[in-house]
């Protein structure tokens, strides 16, 4: 007897292989997975619950916070796509070796930035907006709003695309500011002045400077 699940998985593998070649969010039949808005909600709730319970993280333990992010959040991000979009046309000039290093350094920087943002979390409430997308869409925006007293709610929009291994975030907009777009000018300026290797060097220096986690409470 043929198990329909097996057919589904076979297709998913095929889709993953195709994606690896095309490196774009191609449409492919695959088993139903968690919808993108449900995914954002469950990950957000899980991470918030974890960090508000964890005494060490509350006390400013950055290493522990980074562990949580790496385990819970990182798998849902497509850092290669984020790096390519932030680089713009410079991405084409980069060799495969350079691309690998760029993705590694940029993801380190983004993860640390994310950790700083999470460290500032203090019991804000989240409001999840209904997803406005067709079931066939492969590129959606999931909107979450952070409610704050005496201020306009802050919108966080996750741009996500469907891949062979589930929905992946390729950009985050905070209050209308796209993180990926915001790096474009910086990256372009550096590449123009000192090439891809110059940008790599800058990113490495930035990441090394951030190495020893700053003492808790310091600005």
């Amino acid at each position, binding site marked *: 007897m043929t198990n329909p699940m097996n057919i589904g998985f076979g297709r998913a593998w095929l889709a993953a292989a195709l994606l690896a070649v095309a*490196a*774009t969010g191609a449409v492919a039949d695959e088993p139903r997975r968690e919808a993108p808005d449900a995914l954002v909600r469950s990950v957000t709730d899980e991470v918030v619950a974890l960090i508000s319970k964890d005494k060490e993280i509350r006390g400013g333990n950055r290493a522990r916070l980074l562990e949580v992010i790496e385990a819970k959040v990182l798998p849902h991000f497509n850092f290669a*796509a984020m790096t*390519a*979009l932030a*680089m*713009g*046309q410079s*991405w*084409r000039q980069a060799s495969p070796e350079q691309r690998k290093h760029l993705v590694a350094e940029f993801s380190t*920087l983004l993860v*640390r*930035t994310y950790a*700083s*943002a999470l460290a*500032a979390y*203090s019991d804000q409430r989240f409001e999840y907006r209904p997803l406005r997308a067709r079931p066939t869409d492969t590129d959606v925006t999931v909107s979450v709003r952070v*409610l704050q*007293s*005496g*201020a*306009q*709610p802050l*919108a966080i929009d996750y741009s996500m695309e469907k891949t062979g291994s589930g929905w992946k975030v390729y*950009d985050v907009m905070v*209050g*209308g*500011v*796209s993180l*990926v*777009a*915001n*790096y*474009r*000018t*910086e990256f*372009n*300026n*550096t590449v*123009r002045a000192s090439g891809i290797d110059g940008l790599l060097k*800058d*990113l490495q220096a*930035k990441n090394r400077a*951030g190495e020893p986690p700053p003492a808790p409470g310091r*600005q």
Partner: protein
Amino acid sequence: MMRAVLVATLLALTGCAATAERDRRDPFEPFNRGVYRFNEAVDDVVARPVATAYRDLVPEPVRDRVRNFFSNIGDVFIGVNNILQGKFYDGFEDWMRVVFNTTFGVFGLHDVASDMGIEKRNEDFGQTFGWWGFGPGPYLVLPLLGSSTVRDGIGTGFDLYFDPVAEVRPTRARNALVALRVTGTRADLLDASRLLEQAALDKYVFQRDAYLQRRRSLVYDGRPPRERYEDFEDNPRK
């Protein structure tokens, strides 16, 4: 107008790759960087230490009430700006917020309107000019006030001219209120400025680009015409 904005944005976003040294959106960059350094110095010595002390010493419920109080005063002209933009329903809702928060919220100390589901909005004269179709013009860093553009700088002039807090007399009371408002605002930005330190390779550029993106989003009330990366000619993943 839509097309003009779109063209300007495309130029701004893609054109910066083509032009050599200087960003088209920021022709006064050397001057702006000078003012930026001055602002940073003032922030290091006065604003941030005072704001940090305020955040560490004043309990959160009190800080919330301070924020609510000034937010309530601000809602008056947020309503005016919504009316000027033809968003009459939004404007009246902003004024309803003032009515509820001033009465049931005890002089605006409590944001009861938000609890009732009447949400706070973000408007100012710069956004109104943008809504009317004026582009941002060159980027500017204003002394003490920070990131701006020619349009938003003029808008800030109007905001300050009509600022109800400026009418408070005696002068000493007005100054105290202004100082409290600035301190509270800076304290709310402490996390954001730490984030900027963490995220940016070049703080000046990162802050400028974030400001320009943010203002564009605000002019369109959070729903700017969509720019898909796929639309950019230099999208490397096409």
